[in-house]
Protein backbone atom coordinates (compact mmCIF):
# COMPACT_ATOMS: atom_id res chain seq x y z
CA UNK A 1 0.00 0.00 0.00
CA UNK A 2 2.78 2.41 0.83
CA UNK A 3 4.18 2.13 -2.66
CA UNK A 4 1.05 3.53 -4.22
CA UNK A 5 0.89 7.23 -4.88
CA UNK A 6 -1.06 9.02 -2.16
CA UNK A 7 -4.53 10.07 -3.17
CA UNK A 8 -6.66 11.39 -0.34
CA UNK A 9 -9.80 10.40 -2.22
CA UNK A 10 -9.03 6.79 -1.25
CA UNK A 11 -9.43 7.71 2.41
CA UNK A 12 -12.39 10.07 2.58
CA UNK A 13 -16.14 9.99 2.14
CA UNK A 14 -16.43 12.42 -0.78
CA UNK A 15 -20.19 12.80 -0.43
CA UNK A 16 -19.60 14.99 2.65
CA UNK A 17 -17.28 17.38 0.80
CA UNK A 18 -16.76 20.31 0.59
CA UNK A 19 -16.47 20.15 4.37
CA UNK A 20 -18.21 22.52 6.80
CA UNK A 21 -15.03 24.16 8.11
CA UNK A 22 -14.64 27.88 7.42
CA UNK A 23 -12.34 29.14 4.66
CA UNK A 24 -8.77 28.99 5.98
CA UNK A 25 -9.57 26.78 8.99
CA UNK A 26 -6.53 24.74 9.95
CA UNK A 27 -8.53 21.61 10.75
CA UNK A 28 -8.52 20.61 7.08
CA UNK A 29 -4.72 20.66 7.08
CA UNK A 30 -4.72 18.34 10.12
CA UNK A 31 -7.10 16.04 8.25
CA UNK A 32 -4.74 16.01 5.26
CA UNK A 33 -1.73 15.25 7.48
CA UNK A 34 -3.62 12.44 9.22
CA UNK A 35 -4.58 10.83 5.90
CA UNK A 36 -0.98 11.06 4.69
CA UNK A 37 0.27 9.52 7.95
CA UNK A 38 -2.18 6.62 7.60
CA UNK A 39 -1.15 6.13 3.98
CA UNK A 40 2.57 6.12 4.72
CA UNK A 41 2.13 3.68 7.59
CA UNK A 42 0.41 1.37 5.11
CA UNK A 43 -2.54 0.82 7.44
CA UNK A 44 -5.67 -0.82 6.15
CA UNK A 45 -8.81 1.31 6.39
CA UNK A 46 -10.52 -1.43 8.39
CA UNK A 47 -7.77 -1.39 11.01
CA UNK A 48 -8.51 2.13 12.14
CA UNK A 49 -11.26 3.46 14.34
CA UNK A 50 -11.72 7.21 14.63
CA UNK A 51 -13.66 8.28 17.69
CA UNK A 52 -14.57 11.90 18.18
CA UNK A 53 -16.67 14.05 20.47
CA UNK A 54 -18.32 17.35 19.64
CA UNK A 55 -16.93 20.44 18.01
CA UNK A 56 -15.51 21.62 14.72
CA UNK A 57 -12.53 19.29 14.98
CA UNK A 58 -14.69 16.29 15.84
CA UNK A 59 -16.28 16.52 12.41
CA UNK A 60 -13.22 14.63 11.16
CA UNK A 61 -14.81 11.30 12.05
CA UNK A 62 -17.49 11.86 9.43
CA UNK A 63 -15.07 12.78 6.69
CA UNK A 64 -12.71 9.83 6.90
CA UNK A 65 -13.54 6.46 5.43
CA UNK A 66 -12.42 4.41 8.45
CA UNK A 67 -14.50 2.91 11.22
CA UNK A 68 -15.88 5.96 12.93
CA UNK A 69 -17.78 6.93 16.04
CA UNK A 70 -19.14 10.41 16.55
CA UNK A 71 -19.85 10.40 20.27
CA UNK A 72 -20.71 12.79 23.09
CA UNK A 73 -18.89 15.94 24.09
CA UNK A 74 -15.59 15.31 25.82
CA UNK A 75 -16.13 11.56 26.15
CA UNK A 76 -14.52 10.43 22.91
CA UNK A 77 -11.58 8.97 24.85
CA UNK A 78 -13.94 6.91 27.03
CA UNK A 79 -15.66 5.46 23.96
CA UNK A 80 -12.28 4.79 22.38
CA UNK A 81 -11.18 3.01 25.58
CA UNK A 82 -14.20 0.73 25.27
CA UNK A 83 -13.52 0.01 21.62
CA UNK A 84 -9.84 -0.61 22.25
CA UNK A 85 -10.45 -3.02 25.15
CA UNK A 86 -12.92 -5.09 23.14
CA UNK A 87 -10.93 -5.01 19.90
CA UNK A 88 -7.29 -4.38 20.81
CA UNK A 89 -6.06 -5.03 17.26
CA UNK A 90 -7.71 -1.81 16.02
CA UNK A 91 -5.75 1.44 15.90
CA UNK A 92 -7.72 3.98 17.92
CA UNK A 93 -7.33 7.59 16.87
CA UNK A 94 -9.20 10.36 18.68
CA UNK A 95 -9.23 13.82 17.12
CA UNK A 96 -10.34 16.40 19.68
CA UNK A 97 -10.62 20.13 19.95
CA UNK A 98 -8.99 21.98 22.82
CA UNK A 99 -12.25 22.46 24.70
CA UNK A 100 -13.46 18.94 23.98
CA UNK A 101 -10.17 17.47 25.22
CA UNK A 102 -9.34 19.64 28.21
CA UNK A 103 -12.50 21.31 29.49
CA UNK A 104 -15.42 18.98 29.00
CA UNK A 105 -13.19 15.93 28.63
CA UNK A 106 -10.38 17.02 30.94
CA UNK A 107 -10.95 14.21 33.39
CA UNK A 108 -11.13 11.55 30.68
CA UNK A 109 -7.97 12.96 29.15
CA UNK A 110 -5.83 12.65 32.28
CA UNK A 111 -7.16 9.20 33.12
CA UNK A 112 -6.57 7.83 29.62
CA UNK A 113 -3.02 9.17 29.94
CA UNK A 114 -2.62 7.60 33.39
CA UNK A 115 -3.76 4.19 32.13
CA UNK A 116 -1.42 4.35 29.14
CA UNK A 117 -3.99 2.77 26.86
CA UNK A 118 -2.92 2.49 23.22
CA UNK A 119 -4.88 5.45 21.81
CA UNK A 120 -3.62 8.38 19.75
CA UNK A 121 -5.20 11.62 20.91
CA UNK A 122 -4.87 14.49 18.47
CA UNK A 123 -5.53 17.76 20.26
CA UNK A 124 -6.38 20.30 17.57
CA UNK A 125 -5.68 23.45 19.49
CA UNK A 126 -7.33 26.54 18.00
CA UNK A 127 -7.67 28.17 21.44
CA UNK A 128 -11.41 28.77 21.17
CA UNK A 129 -14.80 27.08 20.84
CA UNK A 130 -15.50 27.65 17.16
CA UNK A 131 -18.68 25.71 16.55
CA UNK A 132 -20.71 27.30 19.34
CA UNK A 133 -19.75 30.86 18.54
CA UNK A 134 -16.33 31.76 19.90
CA UNK A 135 -16.38 31.21 23.67
CA UNK A 136 -12.96 31.11 25.33
CA UNK A 137 -11.50 27.70 26.13
CA UNK A 138 -9.00 26.47 28.74
CA UNK A 139 -6.30 26.97 26.13
CA UNK A 140 -7.16 30.55 25.15
CA UNK A 141 -4.74 32.01 27.69
CA UNK A 142 -4.57 35.30 29.53
CA UNK A 143 -5.66 38.62 27.99
CA UNK A 144 -7.39 37.13 24.98
CA UNK A 145 -10.71 38.27 23.60
CA UNK A 146 -13.62 35.95 22.97
CA UNK A 147 -17.39 36.21 22.67
CA UNK A 148 -17.67 35.40 26.37
CA UNK A 149 -14.71 37.60 27.27
CA UNK A 150 -15.32 40.93 25.52
CA UNK A 151 -13.00 42.68 28.02
CA UNK A 152 -10.37 39.92 27.69
CA UNK A 153 -9.85 36.72 29.67
CA UNK A 154 -8.50 36.43 33.19
CA UNK A 155 -8.05 32.64 33.01
CA UNK A 156 -4.62 31.13 32.63
CA UNK A 157 -4.25 28.37 30.05
CA UNK A 158 -3.18 24.75 30.28
CA UNK A 159 0.02 23.63 28.61
CA UNK A 160 -1.18 20.47 26.85
CA UNK A 161 2.32 19.01 26.66
CA UNK A 162 3.10 19.51 30.36
CA UNK A 163 -0.35 18.27 31.37
CA UNK A 164 -0.11 15.11 29.27
CA UNK A 165 3.43 14.44 30.48
CA UNK A 166 2.54 14.74 34.14
CA UNK A 167 -0.66 12.72 33.70
CA UNK A 168 1.48 9.86 32.41
CA UNK A 169 1.16 9.87 28.61
CA UNK A 170 4.06 7.95 27.11
CA UNK A 171 4.26 9.86 23.83
CA UNK A 172 3.80 13.61 23.72
CA UNK A 173 4.49 15.80 20.71
CA UNK A 174 3.54 19.19 19.35
CA UNK A 175 3.44 20.72 15.90
CA UNK A 176 1.50 23.31 13.93
CA UNK A 177 -0.46 23.29 10.70
CA UNK A 178 2.17 25.51 9.10
CA UNK A 179 4.57 22.58 9.53
CA UNK A 180 2.23 20.12 7.81
CA UNK A 181 4.97 17.67 6.94
CA UNK A 182 6.35 17.60 10.49
CA UNK A 183 2.79 17.20 11.67
CA UNK A 184 2.40 14.12 9.47
CA UNK A 185 5.64 12.61 10.77
CA UNK A 186 4.65 13.16 14.40
CA UNK A 187 1.23 11.61 13.74
CA UNK A 188 2.95 8.60 12.19
CA UNK A 189 5.10 8.18 15.30
CA UNK A 190 2.13 8.73 17.59
CA UNK A 191 -0.01 6.15 15.81
CA UNK A 192 2.82 3.59 15.80
CA UNK A 193 3.61 4.18 19.48
CA UNK A 194 2.26 1.50 21.81
CA UNK A 195 0.65 3.44 24.63
CA UNK A 196 -1.19 6.71 25.07
CA UNK A 197 0.08 9.27 22.58
CA UNK A 198 -0.84 12.92 22.58
CA UNK A 199 -0.11 15.02 19.52
CA UNK A 200 -0.98 18.67 20.00
CA UNK A 201 -1.41 20.53 16.72
CA UNK A 202 -1.77 24.29 16.77
CA UNK A 203 -4.37 25.23 14.20
CA UNK A 204 -5.91 28.55 13.31
CA UNK A 205 -9.50 29.65 13.80
CA UNK A 206 -9.56 32.79 11.64
CA UNK A 207 -13.30 33.21 12.10
CA UNK A 208 -13.35 33.61 15.88
CA UNK A 209 -9.93 33.56 17.51
CA UNK A 210 -8.20 35.43 14.70
CA UNK A 211 -10.92 38.02 14.27
CA UNK A 212 -11.50 38.69 17.97
CA UNK A 213 -7.80 38.95 18.76
CA UNK A 214 -6.84 40.87 15.62
CA UNK A 215 -4.42 38.18 14.50
CA UNK A 216 -5.43 38.62 10.89
CA UNK A 217 -6.62 36.06 8.40
CA UNK A 218 -5.64 32.42 8.07
CA UNK A 219 -2.46 33.28 6.18
CA UNK A 220 -1.22 35.74 8.82
CA UNK A 221 -2.03 33.26 11.58
CA UNK A 222 -0.02 30.58 9.78
CA UNK A 223 2.87 33.02 9.37
CA UNK A 224 2.57 33.48 13.12
CA UNK A 225 3.10 29.75 13.67
CA UNK A 226 6.23 30.03 11.54
CA UNK A 227 7.70 32.90 13.58
CA UNK A 228 6.46 31.97 17.06
CA UNK A 229 7.53 28.33 17.18
CA UNK A 230 10.90 26.61 17.22
CA UNK A 231 12.17 23.05 17.39
CA UNK A 232 12.83 21.71 20.89
CA UNK A 233 16.04 23.10 22.38
CA UNK A 234 16.60 25.63 19.61
CA UNK A 235 19.16 28.38 20.27
CA UNK A 236 16.51 30.99 19.55
CA UNK A 237 14.97 30.14 22.93
CA UNK A 238 17.86 31.82 24.72
CA UNK A 239 16.91 35.14 23.20
CA UNK A 240 13.16 34.65 23.45
CA UNK A 241 11.99 32.04 25.96
CA UNK A 242 8.35 32.68 25.04
CA UNK A 243 8.65 30.82 21.75
CA UNK A 244 6.56 27.67 21.53
CA UNK A 245 8.57 24.47 21.15
CA UNK A 246 7.73 21.81 18.57
CA UNK A 247 8.79 18.18 18.38
CA UNK A 248 8.67 15.07 20.54
CA UNK A 249 8.75 15.85 24.26
CA UNK A 250 8.54 12.34 25.62
CA UNK A 251 8.69 8.87 24.11
CA UNK A 252 8.66 6.13 26.70
CA UNK A 253 8.23 2.47 25.80
CA UNK A 254 8.99 0.96 29.23
CA UNK A 255 5.56 1.39 30.77
CA UNK A 256 3.10 -1.50 30.17
CA UNK A 257 0.21 -0.83 27.84
CA UNK A 258 -3.27 -1.08 29.40
CA UNK A 259 -4.82 -3.68 27.06
CA UNK A 260 -1.82 -5.98 27.45
CA UNK A 261 -1.95 -5.66 31.23
CA UNK A 262 -5.66 -6.40 31.09
CA UNK A 263 -5.04 -9.52 29.00
CA UNK A 264 -2.75 -10.78 31.75
CA UNK A 265 -5.51 -10.29 34.30
CA UNK A 266 -7.88 -12.28 32.08
CA UNK A 267 -5.29 -15.05 31.86
CA UNK A 268 -4.93 -15.17 35.66
CA UNK A 269 -8.69 -15.13 36.16
CA UNK A 270 -9.19 -17.98 33.68
CA UNK A 271 -6.88 -20.13 35.80
CA UNK A 272 -9.38 -19.72 38.61
CA UNK A 273 -6.93 -18.40 41.17
CA UNK A 274 -7.40 -15.04 42.82
Amino acid sequence: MTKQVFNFKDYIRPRFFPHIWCPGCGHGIVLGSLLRAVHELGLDKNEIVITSGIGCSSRISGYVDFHSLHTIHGRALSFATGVKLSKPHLKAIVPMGDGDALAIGGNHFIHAARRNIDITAIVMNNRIYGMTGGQFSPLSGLDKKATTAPYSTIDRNFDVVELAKSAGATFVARSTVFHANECKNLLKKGISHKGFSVVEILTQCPTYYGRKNKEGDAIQMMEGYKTNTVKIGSKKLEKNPDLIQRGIFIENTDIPEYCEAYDKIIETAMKGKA
Partner: protein
Amino acid sequence: MAKGKTVKHLIDKEWCKGCGICIHFCPKNVLEFDKHGKAKAARPEDCIACKLCELRCPDLAIQIIEEQEVEHEKQE
Protein backbone atom coordinates in the same frame (compact mmCIF):
# COMPACT_ATOMS: atom_id res chain seq x y z
CA MET B 1 10.40 22.94 -13.44
CA ALA B 2 11.95 19.61 -12.69
CA LYS B 3 13.80 18.18 -15.68
CA GLY B 4 11.80 15.98 -18.01
CA LYS B 5 8.66 16.38 -15.95
CA THR B 6 5.40 18.17 -16.38
CA VAL B 7 3.27 19.09 -13.42
CA LYS B 8 -0.48 19.11 -13.49
CA HIS B 9 -2.54 21.01 -10.92
CA LEU B 10 -5.89 19.43 -10.28
CA ILE B 11 -7.90 22.04 -8.39
CA ASP B 12 -11.43 21.20 -7.34
CA LYS B 13 -13.25 24.52 -7.69
CA GLU B 14 -16.26 23.15 -5.83
CA TRP B 15 -14.18 22.29 -2.78
CA CYS B 16 -11.87 25.34 -2.84
CA LYS B 17 -13.09 28.08 -0.51
CA GLY B 18 -10.59 30.69 -1.69
CA CYS B 19 -8.66 31.12 1.57
CA GLY B 20 -5.49 31.88 -0.39
CA ILE B 21 -3.13 29.76 1.75
CA CYS B 22 -1.78 27.93 -1.32
CA ILE B 23 -1.22 31.18 -3.21
CA HIS B 24 0.59 32.85 -0.31
CA PHE B 25 2.92 29.97 0.54
CA CYS B 26 3.83 28.94 -3.03
CA PRO B 27 7.61 29.51 -3.30
CA LYS B 28 7.43 29.95 -7.07
CA ASN B 29 4.33 32.13 -7.29
CA VAL B 30 2.57 29.63 -9.52
CA LEU B 31 -0.96 30.07 -8.21
CA GLU B 32 -3.35 33.00 -8.18
CA PHE B 33 -7.05 33.72 -7.72
CA ASP B 34 -9.36 33.29 -10.70
CA LYS B 35 -12.28 35.64 -11.30
CA HIS B 36 -14.48 33.63 -8.92
CA GLY B 37 -11.98 33.98 -6.06
CA LYS B 38 -10.79 30.37 -6.30
CA ALA B 39 -7.21 29.18 -6.73
CA LYS B 40 -5.88 28.49 -10.21
CA ALA B 41 -2.52 27.52 -11.60
CA ALA B 42 -1.57 30.61 -13.59
CA ARG B 43 2.06 29.67 -14.26
CA PRO B 44 2.20 25.86 -14.13
CA GLU B 45 5.51 25.83 -16.03
CA ASP B 46 7.25 27.40 -12.99
CA CYS B 47 6.02 24.68 -10.63
CA ILE B 48 8.73 22.61 -8.95
CA ALA B 49 6.22 20.10 -7.53
CA CYS B 50 7.20 20.81 -3.91
CA LYS B 51 3.56 20.08 -3.05
CA LEU B 52 3.42 22.67 -0.29
CA CYS B 53 0.04 23.83 -1.65
CA GLU B 54 -1.31 20.29 -1.60
CA LEU B 55 -0.01 19.72 1.94
CA ARG B 56 -1.46 22.96 3.30
CA CYS B 57 -4.74 23.14 1.42
CA PRO B 58 -7.36 23.03 4.20
CA ASP B 59 -10.06 21.99 1.75
CA LEU B 60 -8.16 19.05 0.19
CA ALA B 61 -8.89 20.75 -3.11
CA ILE B 62 -5.43 20.58 -4.71
CA GLN B 63 -3.71 17.57 -6.16
CA ILE B 64 -0.32 17.82 -7.82
CA ILE B 65 0.34 15.23 -10.45
CA GLU B 66 3.85 14.82 -11.75
CA GLU B 67 4.15 13.28 -15.16
CA GLN B 68 7.41 11.97 -16.53
CA GLU B 69 7.80 13.03 -20.13
CA VAL B 70 8.37 10.04 -22.38
CA GLU B 71 12.04 10.23 -23.16
CA HIS B 72 13.18 6.70 -22.46
CA GLU B 73 15.13 6.40 -25.67
CA LYS B 74 17.28 9.43 -24.90
CA GLN B 75 18.08 8.24 -21.40
CA GLU B 76 19.32 4.90 -22.69
